[in-house]
């Protein structure tokens, strides 16, 4: 669904998505990296459990919520991707303390 622009190649960033080793590019936000991987549904809603994915990419829609390094409900579009990050699907409501 998404293709990267023909920019000069950037450094590859290794991270995990639900425990699986994957790669993004330096300069990606977490949400952008997931979309580039074709992973368009990053969470299930807190009320109905419907699948959702990044939408506005600018911090207002809260549809790109993911668990990053063990902390839930983080806005993937506002977090720069870094080496070794552990990104997980946000299943429903965030547990306090996680």
């Amino acid at each position, binding site marked *: 669904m998404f293709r990267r622009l023909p920019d000069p190649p950037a450094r590859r960033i290794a991270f995990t998505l639900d425990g699986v080793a994957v790669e993004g590019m330096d300069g990606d936000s977490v949400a952008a990296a997931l979309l580039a991987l074709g992973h368009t549904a990053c969470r299930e809603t807190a*009320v109905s459990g419907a699948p959702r994915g990044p939408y506005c990419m600018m911090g207002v829609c809260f549809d790109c919520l993911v668990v990053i390094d063990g902390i839930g409900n983080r806005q993937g579009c506002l977090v720069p991707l870094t080496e070794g990050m552990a990104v997980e699907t946000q299943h429903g*409501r965030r547990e306090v303390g996680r």
Partner: protein
Amino acid sequence: MANATIFDAAVIGGGVVGAAVACGLLGAGLSTCILDEGDVAHRASRGNFALIWVQSKGLGMARYGSWTRASADAWADFAADLRAETGIDVAHQRPGGFSLCLSEEELEKRRGALTRMHNQPGWIPYDWEVLDRPALMREFPDLGPEVVGGLYCPLDGHVNSLRLFRALHAAFKARGGAYFPERPVTSIAPLSAGGFRIETPKGAIEAGKLVLAAGIANARLAPMVGLVAPVRPQRGQILVTEKTAPFLRHPVITVRQTDEGGVMIGDSAEEAGLDERIGLGVLSVMADRAMRMFPRIAALNVVRTWAALRVMSQDGFPIYDRSESAPGAFIATCHSGVTLAAAHERLLAPMIARGALDADMAPFSARRFDVPQAA
């Protein structure tokens, strides 16, 4: 508009109070319309804290205590009926509610107020308890270290008030009510043959009975039909966190977890006129107190803050009245439209349909304010 549309009853104001009364009037068989403002209305119904709260209501007017309790007692059937009629679950729960105190002084003040309230003449007793810290710990294992004690009343509950608001309007429509938005009322004229002609910028309505349920605007409208409503706006601010797994089974007067998982923090009160802006000073005090009660809240993100305007009378109690000079005109105004919604639909509306308020409603008359100032 030359010919006005004619109804048995017109309710001015389409918030939770107006919609509940209007639903009750339809239930009593009266053809009923609601004249409402538009999206610019102050609309406390969209900003409230959604408690159905009994434990602290009625110091200074015993009848307010029994009226509140009657509504809270009617709420379970009210919610069930709304669901059956509209398919909307308003998430009514009555697990009992707590007030938590962060100092002995606070606890003593609250205990004293409730003791005085329950000792009033004419008070109909109900259960309430003062709980020390060990007793509270059994209910809230991760209570903050500063909480010294609190109060508990099994009659308290809460609801999803946005869904209540929607359900009331859905029920109003389903019962055949006529809803007219964008109709701020400019004038009301009692007709010589009885009834009223109500003018709005989008035309006039005629109705046999009239109910003023316009919140703050009741102060302006009441004198048009020989009533008085000395009410003023009182600002309350609220924070809500992201949705989180359930951890708070009981509503606390300043903190509650909604059925959908968000944690609401509220209960500020400021005299600020019609100013609906929020302020970081008040919000930070509220957030700080909530975190001291439940430290885990500190780990949550706040996703939204807002302010809304309570409709306050001079003594804080509701005003229910019938006009002496224009007997078809009634007024209903209060700051607890959610708690009292069941009473408004099931008890107040039938009185209005019958044409007179019951004798035991007399304490709510605005005539209580007709006391000359002492020299």
